[in-house]
């Protein structure tokens, strides 16, 4: 498996579960967390779980690679570029919703959570497309 694909899998596995739980809690029980401190604490726990899972996975991966540097060739860059371009449009759409539409209809944590959702979604799309790219590489990706 390519080093980039390994990192993509690591990002997906470390990022998706904690944020999925976070957004499910926000959607199912919006009144469960009432104060600012509670909401920030919840977000901090989710971000912490993500960070710990990612760093642990990265250290394990580095150990497996025995200090070899992450070398990307033209195929890796083509797959990464294609995925990043698509994720950029996801992020752009999210930011338009958050910055242009929502200020006139919503406020507070709803805007914050939507912005966070856009970022997580863009990252997820990017890394999911990288993983998919190694399975169905466009024959002329460059």
């Amino acid at each position, binding site marked *: 498996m390519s080093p980039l694909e390994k990192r993509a899998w690591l990002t997906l596995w470390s990022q998706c579960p904690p944020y999925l739980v976070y957004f499910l809690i926000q959607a199912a029980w919006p009144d469960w967390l009432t104060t600012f401190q509670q909401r920030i604490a919840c977000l901090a726990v989710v971000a912490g779980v993500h960070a710990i899972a990612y760093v642990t996975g990265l250290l394990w991966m580095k150990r497996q690679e025995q200090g070899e540097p992450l070398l990307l060739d033209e195929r890796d860059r083509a797959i990464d570029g294609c995925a990043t371009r698509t994720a950029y449009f996801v992020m752009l759409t999210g930011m338009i919703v958050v910055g242009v539409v929502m200020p006139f209809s919503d406020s507070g944590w709803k805007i914050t959570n939507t912005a966070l959702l856009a970022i997580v979604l863009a990252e997820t799309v990017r890394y999911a497309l990288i993983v998919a790219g190694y399975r169905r*590489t466009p024959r002329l990706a460059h």
Partner: protein
Amino acid sequence: MPTESLSNEVRLLRFLAQDMTQAELGRRVGLTRQTIAAIEQGRYSPSLEVAFRIADVFGKRLDEVFHWNPGDGGDASAVPTP
């Protein structure tokens, strides 16, 4: 729908070059082992520069290593008229 494909002799040439490994070929042309495997399996078409480098490693011309098989969409020998 046109069904073009690019085939290559990289696997055979590696075998003839004292069974050169994919990693070794990758190192010499600046690709990862996984990309060499993808090229051999026809899952990835390298850039022209890399294709020339691969041919150079085996001391062959480009058209001895890579073959373009035009499908319904064109004729490889066709030359556009001015």
